[in-house]
């Protein structure tokens, strides 16, 4: 298995673990009461912003650990260059990820259109974010495995 394939798997697992733990923790802090109260919107706004920071920090730590473990266990270092095939795979993965996000984004907006509470839209937005990351990592893994 190539370095990039392993990196995609590590990234996929870290995405799932980060989101699972983060949203389980945040669910306990969900404000009680009216679905339309300012507290609910403040909760969702801060929850998304904190997730971005947490996700970046945890992923950097995970990549550092992954790189160290890979060097120690297999004497394999990260490729020093990004060539045309890497860029093509990144573009295709980003495109697939964008499609996944847009699809769930439309569903999220549709939930508002059919008068569902805003929390449903925010939950769908969370799913859109998670789904787009999963699609991106799975696409990368698939393309690297297939050859391009």
């Amino acid at each position, binding site marked *: 298995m*190539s*370095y*990039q394939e392993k990196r995609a798997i590590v990234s996929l697992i870290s995405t799932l673990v980060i989101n699972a733990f983060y949203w389980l923790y945040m669910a306990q802090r969900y404000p009680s009461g009216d679905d339309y109260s300012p507290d609910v919107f403040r909760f969702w706004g801060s929850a998304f912003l904190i997730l971005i920071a947490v996700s970046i920090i945890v992923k950097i730590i995970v990549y550092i650990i992954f790189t160290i473990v890979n060097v120690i266990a297999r004497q394999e270092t990260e*490729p020093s*260059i990004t*060539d*045309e*095939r*890497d860029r093509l795979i990144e573009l295709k993965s980003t495109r697939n990820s964008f499609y996944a996000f847009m699809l769930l984004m439309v569903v999220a907006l549709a939930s508002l259109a059919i008068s569902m509470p805003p929390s449903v839209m925010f939950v769908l937005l969370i799913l859109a974010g998670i789904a787009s990351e999963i699609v991106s990592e799975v696409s990368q893994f698939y393309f*690297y495995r*297939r*050859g*391009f």
Partner: protein
Amino acid sequence: MSDLRIGNNIRKLRFHHDEMTQQALADKVGVTRQTIIAIENAKYSPSLELAFRIALAFDVPLEEVFFLEDRNL
């Protein structure tokens, strides 16, 4: 119109160049070893620029490196 299948002689050319390693060829043309493996196994068709760089690395014309496998268009 069927897909064009592009074959290559990279494995043979590496052999004729003192069994040049995939890593050595990758370093010579500025790509990763994984990309050379993918090209060699006909899983990835390189850009025209990279194709010419590979031909230059072996000092042969482009058509000696890459060829059409299926000409039924």
